[in-house]
Protein backbone atom coordinates (compact mmCIF):
# COMPACT_ATOMS: atom_id res chain seq x y z
CA UNK A 1 0.00 0.00 0.00
CA UNK A 2 2.72 2.45 0.96
CA UNK A 3 4.56 1.92 -2.33
CA UNK A 4 1.42 2.67 -4.29
CA UNK A 5 0.72 5.67 -2.08
CA UNK A 6 4.16 7.09 -2.76
CA UNK A 7 4.04 6.65 -6.49
CA UNK A 8 0.65 8.26 -6.91
CA UNK A 9 0.95 10.85 -4.16
CA UNK A 10 1.29 13.78 -6.53
CA UNK A 11 -1.69 12.80 -8.57
CA UNK A 12 -3.62 12.11 -5.42
CA UNK A 13 -3.19 15.55 -3.91
CA UNK A 14 -4.50 17.04 -7.08
CA UNK A 15 -7.39 14.63 -7.04
CA UNK A 16 -8.16 15.36 -3.41
CA UNK A 17 -8.43 19.05 -4.25
CA UNK A 18 -10.99 18.22 -6.91
CA UNK A 19 -12.97 16.05 -4.53
CA UNK A 20 -12.95 18.96 -2.08
CA UNK A 21 -14.30 21.13 -4.87
CA UNK A 22 -17.25 18.77 -5.28
CA UNK A 23 -17.77 18.70 -1.54
CA UNK A 24 -17.86 22.48 -1.37
CA UNK A 25 -20.28 22.62 -4.26
CA UNK A 26 -22.42 20.12 -2.33
CA UNK A 27 -22.37 22.26 0.80
CA UNK A 28 -23.30 25.43 -1.04
CA UNK A 29 -26.08 23.54 -2.77
CA UNK A 30 -27.38 22.21 0.55
CA UNK A 31 -27.44 25.72 2.01
CA UNK A 32 -29.44 26.86 -0.99
CA UNK A 33 -31.91 23.98 -0.63
CA UNK A 34 -32.20 24.64 3.11
CA UNK A 35 -33.11 28.26 2.43
CA UNK A 36 -35.58 27.29 -0.29
CA UNK A 37 -37.22 24.75 2.02
CA UNK A 38 -37.17 26.60 5.31
CA UNK A 39 -37.71 30.26 4.46
CA UNK A 40 -41.36 29.87 3.41
CA UNK A 41 -42.08 27.99 6.61
CA UNK A 42 -40.23 30.57 8.72
CA UNK A 43 -42.15 33.35 7.00
CA UNK A 44 -45.38 31.50 7.81
CA UNK A 45 -44.40 31.41 11.49
CA UNK A 46 -43.31 35.05 11.57
CA UNK A 47 -46.51 36.19 9.90
CA UNK A 48 -48.60 34.13 12.29
CA UNK A 49 -47.32 36.14 15.26
CA UNK A 50 -48.03 39.52 13.66
CA UNK A 51 -51.10 41.63 14.13
CA UNK A 52 -53.32 42.06 11.10
CA UNK A 53 -52.04 45.61 10.81
CA UNK A 54 -48.35 44.66 11.05
CA UNK A 55 -48.78 42.02 8.33
CA UNK A 56 -49.98 44.60 5.82
CA UNK A 57 -47.02 46.96 5.90
CA UNK A 58 -44.76 47.76 3.02
CA UNK A 59 -41.86 47.17 3.20
CA UNK A 60 -42.74 44.21 5.45
CA UNK A 61 -41.56 44.02 9.03
CA UNK A 62 -38.98 41.24 8.97
CA UNK A 63 -39.64 40.69 12.63
CA UNK A 64 -42.87 42.07 14.11
CA UNK A 65 -42.47 45.13 16.36
CA UNK A 66 -45.01 43.63 18.71
CA UNK A 67 -45.14 39.87 18.35
CA UNK A 68 -48.49 38.53 19.45
CA UNK A 69 -50.11 35.14 19.87
CA UNK A 70 -53.53 36.65 19.26
CA UNK A 71 -54.18 34.57 16.13
CA UNK A 72 -53.45 31.32 17.93
CA UNK A 73 -55.53 32.36 20.90
CA UNK A 74 -58.42 33.23 18.63
CA UNK A 75 -58.25 29.92 16.76
CA UNK A 76 -57.98 27.81 19.89
CA UNK A 77 -60.60 29.66 21.92
CA UNK A 78 -63.80 27.62 22.12
CA UNK A 79 -65.65 30.72 23.32
CA UNK A 80 -65.70 32.64 20.04
CA UNK A 81 -67.12 31.50 16.70
CA UNK A 82 -63.72 31.41 14.94
CA UNK A 83 -62.27 29.09 17.54
CA UNK A 84 -65.38 26.93 17.59
CA UNK A 85 -65.14 26.40 13.83
CA UNK A 86 -61.42 25.75 13.84
CA UNK A 87 -61.57 23.24 16.68
CA UNK A 88 -64.49 21.47 15.05
CA UNK A 89 -62.61 21.20 11.74
CA UNK A 90 -59.60 19.92 13.62
CA UNK A 91 -61.67 17.28 15.39
CA UNK A 92 -63.36 16.25 12.12
CA UNK A 93 -59.99 15.80 10.43
CA UNK A 94 -58.71 13.77 13.36
CA UNK A 95 -61.79 11.54 13.35
CA UNK A 96 -61.86 10.90 9.60
CA UNK A 97 -58.09 10.29 9.40
CA UNK A 98 -58.03 7.93 12.36
CA UNK A 99 -60.93 5.79 11.18
CA UNK A 100 -59.49 5.68 7.66
CA UNK A 101 -56.13 4.59 9.03
CA UNK A 102 -57.56 1.79 11.15
CA UNK A 103 -59.71 0.44 8.31
CA UNK A 104 -56.84 0.70 5.80
CA UNK A 105 -54.58 -1.40 7.97
CA UNK A 106 -57.27 -4.00 8.71
CA UNK A 107 -58.05 -4.48 5.01
CA UNK A 108 -54.51 -4.10 3.68
CA UNK A 109 -52.68 -6.50 6.02
CA UNK A 110 -54.28 -9.75 4.79
CA UNK A 111 -54.29 -8.58 1.18
CA UNK A 112 -50.60 -7.64 1.22
CA UNK A 113 -49.76 -10.90 2.96
CA UNK A 114 -51.59 -12.87 0.30
CA UNK A 115 -49.90 -10.96 -2.52
CA UNK A 116 -46.54 -11.61 -0.93
CA UNK A 117 -46.92 -15.27 0.00
CA UNK A 118 -49.57 -17.02 -2.06
CA UNK A 119 -49.59 -17.73 -5.72
CA UNK A 120 -53.20 -17.89 -6.80
CA UNK A 121 -54.47 -17.43 -10.35
CA UNK A 122 -54.83 -13.76 -11.19
CA UNK A 123 -52.45 -12.68 -8.44
CA UNK A 124 -50.28 -10.46 -10.62
CA UNK A 125 -53.25 -9.00 -12.44
CA UNK A 126 -54.99 -8.13 -9.18
CA UNK A 127 -51.84 -6.67 -7.66
CA UNK A 128 -51.21 -4.35 -10.57
CA UNK A 129 -54.89 -3.49 -10.80
CA UNK A 130 -54.66 -2.35 -7.21
CA UNK A 131 -51.52 -0.35 -7.97
CA UNK A 132 -53.02 1.23 -11.05
CA UNK A 133 -55.65 2.96 -8.96
CA UNK A 134 -53.06 5.44 -7.83
CA UNK A 135 -52.38 6.49 -11.38
CA UNK A 136 -55.83 7.98 -11.69
CA UNK A 137 -56.67 11.41 -10.37
CA UNK A 138 -59.44 11.89 -7.85
CA UNK A 139 -61.23 14.25 -10.20
CA UNK A 140 -62.37 11.57 -12.64
CA UNK A 141 -63.98 9.60 -9.82
CA UNK A 142 -65.78 12.59 -8.38
CA UNK A 143 -69.01 12.68 -10.38
CA UNK A 144 -69.78 8.96 -10.24
CA UNK A 145 -68.78 8.71 -6.60
CA UNK A 146 -70.88 11.72 -5.74
CA UNK A 147 -73.87 10.03 -7.40
CA UNK A 148 -73.04 6.73 -5.71
CA UNK A 149 -72.76 8.39 -2.33
CA UNK A 150 -76.07 10.11 -2.88
CA UNK A 151 -77.66 6.79 -3.80
CA UNK A 152 -76.46 5.09 -0.63
CA UNK A 153 -77.20 8.17 1.49
CA UNK A 154 -73.64 9.04 2.47
CA UNK A 155 -73.45 12.55 1.02
CA UNK A 156 -72.73 15.07 3.74
CA UNK A 157 -71.44 12.43 6.10
CA UNK A 158 -67.92 11.55 7.12
CA UNK A 159 -68.65 8.02 5.92
CA UNK A 160 -68.42 9.17 2.31
CA UNK A 161 -64.93 10.50 2.96
CA UNK A 162 -63.74 7.45 4.83
CA UNK A 163 -64.94 5.12 2.09
CA UNK A 164 -63.27 7.13 -0.67
CA UNK A 165 -60.06 7.69 1.30
CA UNK A 166 -59.75 3.93 1.54
CA UNK A 167 -59.54 3.72 -2.23
CA UNK A 168 -56.36 5.72 -2.51
CA UNK A 169 -55.00 4.61 0.86
CA UNK A 170 -55.38 0.90 0.20
CA UNK A 171 -53.25 0.51 -2.92
CA UNK A 172 -50.29 2.21 -1.29
CA UNK A 173 -50.83 0.39 1.97
CA UNK A 174 -50.87 -2.93 0.15
CA UNK A 175 -47.78 -2.02 -1.82
CA UNK A 176 -45.83 -0.86 1.25
CA UNK A 177 -46.81 -3.89 3.32
CA UNK A 178 -46.08 -6.37 0.54
CA UNK A 179 -42.52 -5.04 0.47
CA UNK A 180 -42.20 -5.79 4.15
CA UNK A 181 -43.66 -9.28 3.94
CA UNK A 182 -41.37 -10.08 1.02
CA UNK A 183 -38.42 -9.44 3.32
CA UNK A 184 -39.56 -11.73 6.12
CA UNK A 185 -38.08 -15.18 5.51
CA UNK A 186 -40.69 -17.81 4.76
CA UNK A 187 -38.59 -20.30 6.72
CA UNK A 188 -39.71 -18.67 9.96
CA UNK A 189 -43.31 -19.49 9.18
CA UNK A 190 -42.42 -22.94 7.96
CA UNK A 191 -40.67 -23.65 11.24
CA UNK A 192 -43.79 -22.59 13.10
CA UNK A 193 -45.95 -24.78 10.86
CA UNK A 194 -43.70 -27.75 11.58
CA UNK A 195 -44.11 -27.06 15.27
CA UNK A 196 -47.84 -27.47 14.78
CA UNK A 197 -49.11 -23.94 14.20
CA UNK A 198 -51.83 -23.39 11.61
CA UNK A 199 -51.12 -21.01 8.78
CA UNK A 200 -53.24 -18.38 10.48
CA UNK A 201 -51.45 -18.85 13.80
CA UNK A 202 -48.09 -18.58 12.06
CA UNK A 203 -49.28 -15.39 10.46
CA UNK A 204 -50.51 -13.85 13.71
CA UNK A 205 -47.69 -15.05 15.97
CA UNK A 206 -44.66 -14.88 13.67
CA UNK A 207 -45.32 -12.56 10.77
CA UNK A 208 -47.38 -9.85 12.45
CA UNK A 209 -44.82 -8.94 15.14
CA UNK A 210 -42.04 -8.85 12.55
CA UNK A 211 -43.99 -6.57 10.27
CA UNK A 212 -44.84 -4.01 12.94
CA UNK A 213 -42.54 -1.37 11.39
CA UNK A 214 -44.29 -1.86 8.07
CA UNK A 215 -47.69 -1.54 9.68
CA UNK A 216 -46.62 1.63 11.48
CA UNK A 217 -45.33 3.09 8.20
CA UNK A 218 -48.54 2.17 6.43
CA UNK A 219 -50.61 3.72 9.19
CA UNK A 220 -48.64 6.98 8.98
CA UNK A 221 -49.08 7.10 5.25
CA UNK A 222 -52.82 6.56 5.46
CA UNK A 223 -53.14 9.13 8.20
CA UNK A 224 -51.17 11.83 6.41
CA UNK A 225 -53.01 11.13 3.16
CA UNK A 226 -56.41 11.44 4.82
CA UNK A 227 -55.42 14.45 6.90
CA UNK A 228 -54.27 16.39 3.84
CA UNK A 229 -57.01 15.29 1.45
CA UNK A 230 -58.88 18.14 -0.12
CA UNK A 231 -60.85 17.39 -3.32
CA UNK A 232 -63.31 14.82 -2.00
CA UNK A 233 -63.92 16.75 1.19
CA UNK A 234 -64.40 19.90 -0.88
CA UNK A 235 -66.97 18.17 -3.10
CA UNK A 236 -68.81 15.80 -0.77
CA UNK A 237 -69.34 18.03 2.25
CA UNK A 238 -71.30 21.21 2.28
CA UNK A 239 -72.33 21.66 5.89
CA UNK A 240 -70.02 23.84 7.90
CA UNK A 241 -70.03 21.55 10.93
CA UNK A 242 -68.66 18.57 8.99
CA UNK A 243 -65.76 20.16 7.11
CA UNK A 244 -62.25 18.87 7.58
CA UNK A 245 -59.32 21.24 8.05
CA UNK A 246 -58.13 21.75 4.46
CA UNK A 247 -61.59 22.72 3.27
CA UNK A 248 -62.56 24.43 6.50
CA UNK A 249 -59.58 26.75 6.35
CA UNK A 250 -60.44 27.73 2.81
CA UNK A 251 -64.14 28.39 3.44
CA UNK A 252 -63.31 30.24 6.54
CA UNK A 253 -60.72 32.61 5.14
CA UNK A 254 -62.45 33.36 1.90
CA UNK A 255 -64.77 35.30 4.18
CA UNK A 256 -62.10 37.55 5.69
CA UNK A 257 -59.41 37.58 3.08
CA UNK A 258 -57.07 40.01 4.78
CA UNK A 259 -56.47 38.00 7.93
CA UNK A 260 -53.14 36.60 6.80
CA UNK A 261 -51.74 36.14 10.33
CA UNK A 262 -54.80 34.02 11.15
CA UNK A 263 -54.43 32.03 7.95
CA UNK A 264 -50.74 31.39 8.62
CA UNK A 265 -51.45 30.37 12.22
CA UNK A 266 -54.12 27.96 10.99
CA UNK A 267 -51.77 26.55 8.33
CA UNK A 268 -49.13 26.06 10.99
CA UNK A 269 -51.45 24.26 13.39
CA UNK A 270 -52.76 22.10 10.60
CA UNK A 271 -49.20 21.04 9.77
CA UNK A 272 -48.06 20.30 13.31
CA UNK A 273 -49.74 16.89 13.85
CA UNK A 274 -48.56 15.33 10.59
CA UNK A 275 -45.06 16.77 10.78
CA UNK A 276 -44.58 15.56 14.36
CA UNK A 277 -46.00 12.14 13.49
CA UNK A 278 -43.74 11.93 10.47
CA UNK A 279 -40.56 13.08 12.19
CA UNK A 280 -40.98 10.67 15.09
CA UNK A 281 -41.58 7.68 12.84
CA UNK A 282 -39.76 8.67 9.66
CA UNK A 283 -37.26 5.84 9.86
CA UNK A 284 -39.94 3.17 9.35
CA UNK A 285 -41.70 5.27 6.83
CA UNK A 286 -38.76 6.01 4.56
CA UNK A 287 -37.70 2.38 4.65
CA UNK A 288 -41.14 1.17 3.63
CA UNK A 289 -41.56 3.77 0.94
CA UNK A 290 -38.32 3.00 -0.80
CA UNK A 291 -38.20 -0.75 -0.23
CA UNK A 292 -39.85 -1.76 -3.47
CA UNK A 293 -38.15 0.70 -5.76
CA UNK A 294 -34.47 0.31 -4.95
CA UNK A 295 -34.05 -3.41 -5.42
CA UNK A 296 -31.88 -4.64 -8.22
Amino acid sequence: MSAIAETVSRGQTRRRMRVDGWRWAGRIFLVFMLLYTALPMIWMLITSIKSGFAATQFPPQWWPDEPTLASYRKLLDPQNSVGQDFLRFFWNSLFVSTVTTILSVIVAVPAAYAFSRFSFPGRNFLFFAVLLRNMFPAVIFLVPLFILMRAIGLVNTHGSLILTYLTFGLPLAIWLLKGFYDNIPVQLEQAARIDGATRFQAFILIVMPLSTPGIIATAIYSFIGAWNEYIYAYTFLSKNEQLTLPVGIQRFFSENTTDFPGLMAASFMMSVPVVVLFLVLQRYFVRALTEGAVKH
Partner: protein
Amino acid sequence: MTIVTGKAEARRKLQPGRSGALRDIWEHRADYAYVLPAIAVMLIVIAYPIYYTIELSFYKTPPGLQLRDKTFIGFDNYTAILTSEVFWKVTWNTLIWTFGSTFISFVLGFATALALHRDFIGRGVLRAILIIPWVISAVAASYIWKWIYHSDFGIIGAVLVGLGLADRPPNFIDNVSTVLPSLIVVNIWREFPFAMIMMMAGLQTVPEQLLLAAKVDGANAWQRFWHVTFPHLRNVSVVTILLLAVANFNSFIIPWIMTGGGPSNASHIWITHIYELAFGRQRWGVASAYSVLLFIILMTLGYFYVRALSGNERKEGGA
Protein backbone atom coordinates in the same frame (compact mmCIF):
# COMPACT_ATOMS: atom_id res chain seq x y z
CA MET B 1 -31.25 -18.22 -3.90
CA THR B 2 -31.00 -21.98 -4.26
CA ILE B 3 -33.00 -22.64 -1.13
CA VAL B 4 -36.70 -23.08 -1.55
CA THR B 5 -38.28 -19.67 -1.29
CA GLY B 6 -41.52 -20.97 0.04
CA LYS B 7 -44.87 -22.37 -0.75
CA ALA B 8 -45.52 -19.92 -3.54
CA GLU B 9 -42.54 -21.20 -5.51
CA ALA B 10 -43.38 -24.83 -4.91
CA ARG B 11 -46.95 -24.30 -6.02
CA ARG B 12 -45.97 -22.49 -9.14
CA LYS B 13 -43.98 -25.50 -10.21
CA LEU B 14 -46.90 -27.83 -9.59
CA GLN B 15 -49.37 -25.69 -11.47
CA PRO B 16 -51.27 -27.69 -14.09
CA GLY B 17 -51.82 -26.53 -17.63
CA ARG B 18 -54.58 -24.39 -18.98
CA SER B 19 -57.15 -27.17 -18.78
CA GLY B 20 -57.10 -26.99 -15.01
CA ALA B 21 -57.57 -23.23 -14.68
CA LEU B 22 -60.94 -23.45 -12.98
CA ARG B 23 -59.81 -26.24 -10.70
CA ASP B 24 -56.77 -24.14 -9.95
CA ILE B 25 -58.89 -21.20 -8.89
CA TRP B 26 -61.05 -23.52 -6.79
CA GLU B 27 -58.01 -25.01 -5.08
CA HIS B 28 -56.80 -21.54 -4.15
CA ARG B 29 -60.19 -20.38 -2.88
CA ALA B 30 -58.84 -19.90 0.64
CA ASP B 31 -56.19 -17.50 -0.67
CA TYR B 32 -58.78 -15.23 -2.18
CA ALA B 33 -60.35 -14.70 1.22
CA TYR B 34 -57.34 -12.58 2.16
CA VAL B 35 -57.64 -10.22 -0.77
CA LEU B 36 -61.42 -10.20 -1.04
CA PRO B 37 -62.10 -7.23 1.28
CA ALA B 38 -59.56 -5.11 -0.58
CA ILE B 39 -60.91 -6.14 -3.98
CA ALA B 40 -64.48 -5.50 -2.90
CA VAL B 41 -63.73 -1.95 -1.79
CA MET B 42 -61.82 -1.28 -4.99
CA LEU B 43 -64.60 -2.65 -7.17
CA ILE B 44 -67.30 -0.49 -5.63
CA VAL B 45 -65.39 2.74 -5.68
CA ILE B 46 -63.25 2.25 -8.78
CA ALA B 47 -64.74 -0.12 -11.31
CA TYR B 48 -68.17 1.46 -11.04
CA PRO B 49 -66.95 5.06 -11.43
CA ILE B 50 -64.83 4.11 -14.41
CA TYR B 51 -67.77 2.43 -16.11
CA TYR B 52 -70.03 5.38 -15.34
CA THR B 53 -67.53 7.93 -16.62
CA ILE B 54 -67.17 6.10 -19.92
CA GLU B 55 -70.94 5.91 -20.27
CA LEU B 56 -71.50 9.60 -19.52
CA SER B 57 -68.86 10.63 -22.03
CA PHE B 58 -71.20 9.59 -24.87
CA TYR B 59 -74.14 11.62 -23.62
CA LYS B 60 -75.33 15.18 -23.64
CA THR B 61 -76.14 15.93 -20.03
CA PRO B 62 -78.33 18.59 -18.47
CA PRO B 63 -76.89 20.86 -15.80
CA GLY B 64 -77.67 19.85 -12.25
CA LEU B 65 -77.43 16.25 -11.22
CA GLN B 66 -80.67 15.02 -12.85
CA LEU B 67 -78.57 12.80 -15.07
CA ARG B 68 -81.48 10.58 -16.12
CA ASP B 69 -82.42 13.19 -18.73
CA LYS B 70 -79.28 12.63 -20.74
CA THR B 71 -79.33 12.03 -24.51
CA PHE B 72 -76.96 9.83 -26.47
CA ILE B 73 -74.74 11.80 -28.84
CA GLY B 74 -71.96 9.36 -29.74
CA PHE B 75 -68.53 10.90 -30.05
CA ASP B 76 -69.71 14.52 -30.17
CA ASN B 77 -68.21 15.37 -26.79
CA TYR B 78 -64.85 14.13 -27.97
CA THR B 79 -64.88 16.07 -31.21
CA ALA B 80 -66.02 19.17 -29.33
CA ILE B 81 -63.04 18.86 -27.03
CA LEU B 82 -60.44 18.21 -29.71
CA THR B 83 -61.58 21.15 -31.82
CA SER B 84 -61.70 23.66 -28.96
CA GLU B 85 -58.93 26.18 -28.46
CA VAL B 86 -58.96 25.82 -24.68
CA PHE B 87 -58.09 22.16 -25.03
CA TRP B 88 -54.78 22.89 -26.73
CA LYS B 89 -53.98 25.72 -24.35
CA VAL B 90 -54.64 23.50 -21.35
CA THR B 91 -52.74 20.59 -22.86
CA TRP B 92 -49.71 22.82 -23.45
CA ASN B 93 -49.90 24.05 -19.83
CA THR B 94 -50.17 20.47 -18.60
CA LEU B 95 -47.06 19.47 -20.53
CA ILE B 96 -45.03 22.38 -19.18
CA TRP B 97 -46.34 21.78 -15.68
CA THR B 98 -45.72 18.02 -15.72
CA PHE B 99 -42.31 17.99 -17.39
CA GLY B 100 -41.04 21.13 -15.67
CA SER B 101 -42.05 19.98 -12.20
CA THR B 102 -40.92 16.39 -12.70
CA PHE B 103 -37.56 17.19 -14.23
CA ILE B 104 -36.53 19.91 -11.79
CA SER B 105 -37.86 18.03 -8.74
CA PHE B 106 -35.93 14.96 -9.75
CA VAL B 107 -32.68 16.81 -10.44
CA LEU B 108 -32.90 18.83 -7.20
CA GLY B 109 -33.87 15.76 -5.19
CA PHE B 110 -31.09 13.66 -6.67
CA ALA B 111 -28.49 16.39 -6.15
CA THR B 112 -29.63 16.83 -2.55
CA ALA B 113 -29.42 13.08 -1.97
CA LEU B 114 -25.86 13.06 -3.34
CA ALA B 115 -24.87 16.01 -1.18
CA LEU B 116 -26.40 14.31 1.87
CA HIS B 117 -24.88 10.92 1.14
CA ARG B 118 -21.65 11.53 3.01
CA ASP B 119 -22.07 11.68 6.78
CA PHE B 120 -21.55 15.00 8.55
CA ILE B 121 -22.69 16.62 11.77
CA GLY B 122 -26.32 17.61 11.60
CA ARG B 123 -27.10 15.51 8.58
CA GLY B 124 -30.14 13.88 10.17
CA VAL B 125 -31.60 17.22 11.24
CA LEU B 126 -30.98 18.74 7.83
CA ARG B 127 -32.63 15.82 6.11
CA ALA B 128 -35.66 16.05 8.38
CA ILE B 129 -36.06 19.78 7.64
CA LEU B 130 -35.77 19.18 3.92
CA ILE B 131 -38.52 16.55 4.02
CA ILE B 132 -41.10 18.69 5.85
CA PRO B 133 -42.59 20.46 2.79
CA TRP B 134 -43.55 17.08 1.42
CA VAL B 135 -45.48 16.16 4.57
CA ILE B 136 -47.46 19.32 5.15
CA SER B 137 -50.71 19.72 3.29
CA ALA B 138 -50.76 21.15 -0.20
CA VAL B 139 -53.54 23.46 0.96
CA ALA B 140 -51.31 24.96 3.64
CA ALA B 141 -48.43 25.18 1.15
CA SER B 142 -50.65 26.99 -1.34
CA TYR B 143 -51.64 29.62 1.22
CA ILE B 144 -48.08 30.08 2.44
CA TRP B 145 -46.84 30.73 -1.11
CA LYS B 146 -49.82 32.86 -2.00
CA TRP B 147 -48.78 35.08 0.86
CA ILE B 148 -45.13 35.04 -0.27
CA TYR B 149 -46.17 36.02 -3.81
CA HIS B 150 -48.73 38.58 -2.63
CA SER B 151 -48.68 41.58 -4.95
CA ASP B 152 -48.84 44.16 -2.14
CA PHE B 153 -47.31 42.53 0.92
CA GLY B 154 -45.39 39.61 -0.56
CA ILE B 155 -41.87 39.06 0.69
CA ILE B 156 -40.29 38.26 -2.70
CA GLY B 157 -41.63 41.48 -4.18
CA ALA B 158 -40.35 43.42 -1.17
CA VAL B 159 -36.88 41.91 -1.54
CA LEU B 160 -36.79 42.71 -5.25
CA VAL B 161 -37.82 46.30 -4.57
CA GLY B 162 -35.35 46.56 -1.69
CA LEU B 163 -32.50 45.42 -3.92
CA GLY B 164 -33.52 47.92 -6.58
CA LEU B 165 -34.40 45.15 -9.05
CA ALA B 166 -38.00 46.29 -9.43
CA ASP B 167 -39.81 49.60 -9.04
CA ARG B 168 -42.78 48.01 -7.40
CA PRO B 169 -43.59 44.43 -6.31
CA PRO B 170 -44.23 42.25 -9.38
CA ASN B 171 -47.52 40.48 -9.73
CA PHE B 172 -46.41 36.87 -9.86
CA ILE B 173 -49.64 34.92 -10.00
CA ASP B 174 -51.96 37.46 -11.60
CA ASN B 175 -49.75 37.67 -14.64
CA VAL B 176 -50.28 35.40 -17.65
CA SER B 177 -46.58 35.00 -18.38
CA THR B 178 -45.32 34.34 -14.83
CA VAL B 179 -48.16 32.40 -13.26
CA LEU B 180 -47.23 28.90 -14.43
CA PRO B 181 -43.51 29.13 -13.53
CA SER B 182 -44.50 30.60 -10.14
CA LEU B 183 -46.79 27.65 -9.44
CA ILE B 184 -44.13 25.21 -10.59
CA VAL B 185 -41.73 26.68 -8.01
CA VAL B 186 -44.33 25.91 -5.31
CA ASN B 187 -44.89 22.41 -6.64
CA ILE B 188 -41.18 21.64 -6.70
CA TRP B 189 -40.91 22.93 -3.17
CA ARG B 190 -43.42 20.32 -2.08
CA GLU B 191 -42.10 17.46 -4.09
CA PHE B 192 -38.32 17.43 -4.45
CA PRO B 193 -38.14 15.80 -0.97
CA PHE B 194 -39.83 12.71 -2.41
CA ALA B 195 -37.16 12.38 -5.08
CA MET B 196 -34.56 12.99 -2.38
CA ILE B 197 -35.87 10.16 -0.17
CA MET B 198 -36.02 7.72 -3.06
CA MET B 199 -32.56 8.56 -4.35
CA MET B 200 -31.00 8.45 -0.87
CA ALA B 201 -32.32 4.94 -0.49
CA GLY B 202 -31.00 4.07 -3.94
CA LEU B 203 -27.55 5.46 -3.15
CA GLN B 204 -27.26 3.08 -0.23
CA THR B 205 -27.36 0.15 -2.60
CA VAL B 206 -24.37 1.28 -4.67
CA PRO B 207 -21.51 -1.08 -3.74
CA GLU B 208 -18.66 0.74 -2.00
CA GLN B 209 -16.07 -1.65 -3.46
CA LEU B 210 -16.96 -0.68 -7.01
CA LEU B 211 -16.49 3.01 -6.23
CA LEU B 212 -13.22 2.26 -4.51
CA ALA B 213 -12.03 0.16 -7.44
CA ALA B 214 -12.91 2.95 -9.85
CA LYS B 215 -10.99 5.38 -7.66
CA VAL B 216 -7.92 3.16 -7.66
CA ASP B 217 -8.20 2.96 -11.43
CA GLY B 218 -7.94 6.74 -11.53
CA ALA B 219 -11.55 7.71 -12.18
CA ASN B 220 -12.36 11.21 -10.97
CA ALA B 221 -15.46 12.07 -8.95
CA TRP B 222 -17.54 12.84 -12.02
CA GLN B 223 -16.48 9.65 -13.83
CA ARG B 224 -17.23 7.58 -10.73
CA PHE B 225 -20.66 9.12 -10.56
CA TRP B 226 -21.42 8.71 -14.26
CA HIS B 227 -20.04 5.22 -14.78
CA VAL B 228 -20.63 3.54 -11.41
CA THR B 229 -23.22 5.34 -9.29
CA PHE B 230 -25.68 6.43 -11.92
CA PRO B 231 -26.08 3.07 -13.75
CA HIS B 232 -26.83 1.49 -10.37
CA LEU B 233 -29.63 3.97 -9.81
CA ARG B 234 -31.33 3.37 -13.12
CA ASN B 235 -34.22 1.41 -11.62
CA VAL B 236 -34.98 3.70 -8.74
CA SER B 237 -34.65 6.71 -11.06
CA VAL B 238 -37.20 5.32 -13.49
CA VAL B 239 -39.68 4.51 -10.73
CA THR B 240 -39.19 7.91 -9.08
CA ILE B 241 -39.60 9.86 -12.31
CA LEU B 242 -42.72 7.94 -13.26
CA LEU B 243 -44.30 8.41 -9.83
CA LEU B 244 -43.47 12.13 -9.94
CA ALA B 245 -44.81 12.47 -13.48
CA VAL B 246 -48.10 10.80 -12.60
CA ALA B 247 -48.47 12.86 -9.42
CA ASN B 248 -47.78 16.08 -11.33
CA PHE B 249 -50.10 15.20 -14.14
CA ASN B 250 -52.80 14.62 -11.53
CA SER B 251 -52.12 17.77 -9.47
CA PHE B 252 -55.10 19.74 -8.40
CA ILE B 253 -54.71 21.54 -5.12
CA ILE B 254 -51.88 24.00 -5.82
CA PRO B 255 -53.22 25.46 -9.10
CA TRP B 256 -56.80 25.32 -7.86
CA ILE B 257 -56.23 27.16 -4.58
CA MET B 258 -53.58 29.58 -5.78
CA THR B 259 -55.18 30.73 -9.03
CA GLY B 260 -58.23 28.60 -9.89
CA GLY B 261 -56.71 28.19 -13.36
CA GLY B 262 -56.50 31.89 -14.07
CA PRO B 263 -55.65 34.45 -15.26
CA SER B 264 -57.36 33.66 -18.59
CA ASN B 265 -56.65 29.90 -18.34
CA ALA B 266 -52.90 30.52 -18.06
CA SER B 267 -52.58 28.09 -15.15
CA HIS B 268 -55.33 25.64 -16.02
CA ILE B 269 -54.05 22.11 -16.37
CA TRP B 270 -56.16 19.12 -17.38
CA ILE B 271 -57.32 18.20 -13.91
CA THR B 272 -58.37 21.69 -12.85
CA HIS B 273 -60.04 22.18 -16.22
CA ILE B 274 -62.04 18.94 -15.86
CA TYR B 275 -63.05 19.95 -12.36
CA GLU B 276 -64.26 23.32 -13.56
CA LEU B 277 -66.16 21.78 -16.48
CA ALA B 278 -67.88 19.31 -14.16
CA PHE B 279 -68.53 21.16 -10.93
CA GLY B 280 -68.25 24.74 -12.13
CA ARG B 281 -70.14 24.67 -15.42
CA GLN B 282 -71.88 21.31 -14.79
CA ARG B 283 -71.01 19.98 -18.23
CA TRP B 284 -70.83 16.40 -17.01
CA GLY B 285 -70.70 14.79 -20.45
CA VAL B 286 -67.78 16.86 -21.69
CA ALA B 287 -65.95 16.48 -18.40
CA SER B 288 -66.42 12.70 -18.62
CA ALA B 289 -65.05 12.62 -22.16
CA TYR B 290 -62.03 14.55 -20.90
CA SER B 291 -61.66 12.02 -18.11
CA VAL B 292 -61.73 9.13 -20.57
CA LEU B 293 -58.97 10.76 -22.64
CA LEU B 294 -57.02 11.31 -19.44
CA PHE B 295 -57.58 7.72 -18.58
CA ILE B 296 -56.05 6.53 -21.84
CA ILE B 297 -52.99 8.70 -21.30
CA LEU B 298 -52.57 7.44 -17.76
CA MET B 299 -53.03 3.83 -18.77
CA THR B 300 -50.12 4.32 -21.16
CA LEU B 301 -47.99 5.82 -18.39
CA GLY B 302 -49.20 3.04 -16.11
CA TYR B 303 -48.03 0.44 -18.57
CA PHE B 304 -44.49 1.81 -18.38
CA TYR B 305 -44.71 2.05 -14.62
CA VAL B 306 -45.76 -1.58 -14.25
CA ARG B 307 -43.06 -2.61 -16.69
CA ALA B 308 -40.44 -0.74 -14.66
CA LEU B 309 -41.69 -2.39 -11.49
CA SER B 310 -41.91 -5.92 -12.85
CA GLY B 311 -38.50 -5.41 -14.43
CA ASN B 312 -37.31 -5.02 -10.84
CA GLU B 313 -38.96 -8.24 -9.80
CA ARG B 314 -37.61 -10.24 -12.68
CA LYS B 315 -34.07 -9.21 -11.88
CA GLU B 316 -34.64 -9.96 -8.25
CA GLY B 317 -35.81 -13.43 -9.07
CA GLY B 318 -32.89 -14.11 -11.34
CA ALA B 319 -30.26 -12.94 -8.88
